């Protein structure tokens, strides 16, 4: 779902890289956030609500709403909408609040 041609903008994408999300290999371009790369792959469910375990996705995409928290390279509660994807990153969806023992 990446935009290849745009009437106003040109997207200068970085080098093609890969990271692992819940065991799946995801393509990203250097400079993209983890959320943008997952979204481009059609993955839009990022978290679950603490009590009712309802699915949650992005809301603000600028690091303010905490709807997209995941465990990234072992660090829980990482805001994937403002964290840039890096080659070989290990990204896990987490239980709602994250766990330091993961």
């Amino acid at each position, binding site marked *: 779902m990446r935009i290849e*041609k*745009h009437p*106003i903008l040109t997207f200068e994408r970085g080098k093609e890289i890969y990271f692992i999300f819940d065991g799946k290999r995801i393509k990203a371009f250097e400079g993209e956030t983890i959320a943008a790369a997952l979204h481009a792959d059609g993955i*839009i469910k990022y978290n679950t609500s603490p009590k009712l375990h309802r699915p949650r996705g992005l*809301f603000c995409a600028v*690091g303010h709403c905490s709807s997209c928290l995941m465990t990234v390279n072992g660090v829980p509660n990482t805001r994937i909408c403002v964290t840039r994807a890096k080659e070989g990153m290990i990204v896990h969806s987490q239980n709602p609040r994250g766990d330091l023992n993961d």
Partner: protein
Amino acid sequence: MIETDILVVGGGPAGISAALACGRNNIKTVLIEERDFLGGQLIKQTHRFFGSKEERAGSRGIRIAEDLMNEIKKNKNIDLYLDARALGYYEEEKIFTVLQNGRMLKFSPRKLIIATGAFEKSLSFENNDLPGIYGAGAVQTLMNIYGVKPAERVLMIGSGNIGLIVSYQLIQAGVQVVGVIEAAPEIGGYAVHASKIRRLGVPLYTSHTIKKAIGNEFVTGAEIIELDRNWNEIKGTEKKIDCDCICLSVGLSPLVDILSQSGCEMVYIPELGGEVPVRNENMQTSIDNIYVAGDLAGIEEATAAMLEGELAGLCAANTFINDVKQDERIEKIKNNLEVLRSGPKGSKIRSGLNKLIKGETFFQGGRNTGSEIEAFKKTGIPSGENLRSILPDEKRINETPFALIECFQEIPCDPCVNNCPFGAITEGTDINNLPKIDYSKCTGCGSCISRCPGLAIFLINKNYSENTSTVSMPYEMLPVPQKGEIVDVLDREGKKIVSGKVVKVLKNEKMDKTNVISVEIPKEFFNVARNIRLVK
């Protein structure tokens, strides 16, 4: 401890303008931004801005952003800290703390300018937490910064300028907009923005709200319902709409956390977006050292944010420099802000600002009512009467090509006036006035078409041939048609009226991607044809 004269918090349009105002006057300035890039919301604004020539009206937001950001990088008086999050201000010690790369930095500024912007509001309805329900800013971030389509079929909630502009940008990104719904009986934003998406065929539902989102794991649709005059739901008017994204454009809340923590006096003013800092007309808060600018001081648009930023910067800097020239500039900015807010569409912000300080009136004047354009404000489509009011007389229509400005709502804007090489377009002394064409001066050159931020100017050549006319229209979609191509010609509601032949495609650097397409159609459609669609 890092000493500086001015510390600006927030690298959006207001913060950048504040830092530049200080940096240009050789004042040592620190600019901190929580993200690893500058620009705030400005770098997502691909559309042309309204306002006056001085504020670069008619330019795209992204171009203004590029220029401002380059100037920040070149200015030796400005130290930029990216990836730096504001933590707090400690008034007694006059220390501001910042988190960068896991380290806490301590700043000791003489003056602070806070320009942290705003946060998107949500709306309560059933299932409003499903994946696929995004703020309009999130949608813009995905598509305009990262070049990722947020979805395939989007339902837009809210018809303020942001909702209308983002709808248009979604279509430019190749996404279908299945509708825009608005709870109020008329369009919230500028009606010309609505006209743009109407002629692309987007339905607009005024007096409607969303009842629930449909879907289990993610959004698969929405149920909307009509509202009566008292904003109550009308039973039996529920309607299902298929979509994979519900985009919320229902307003913004000022991001005032740092100000609350600092101890600034706050006040709740709905017209300004909620809780805002009490401030004077120099943008100074109840704490003498703290100035504010942009959306956190009251929700407006980027042009006002840039002016407020410069104002806050100069007023804060004035406490060290006392330069007469700056006083003149300060008065000029205040005047420009007043002009920007003085039209009928500025009545909300004026009423909010007048509540800001008891006993002090920011605005004496300003117009609350504009032209009687009920239908246009409800639909984004001008009525027959509206259209008759702008057409030249029959004789002129039949002579040579002429421009037609379908602008019926008083908004602060003047690029058409400033870009007519023949001085044929005027709007008098008030920038909010509707533009008028002197048809004895209009040569039909069409250079106004690509400059209008509302994309509301068309060029008509009634007697192109014995049986045909041509209509030249602004076109910002892909692919661009070729000369000679047969296309579907659409009316103001995006409905096909006839097939037409593209006789001219005008594009050059100055037009900055607003191409002008001339299409040949049977004469009877010269005042109906307003868009084209390529035939696959």
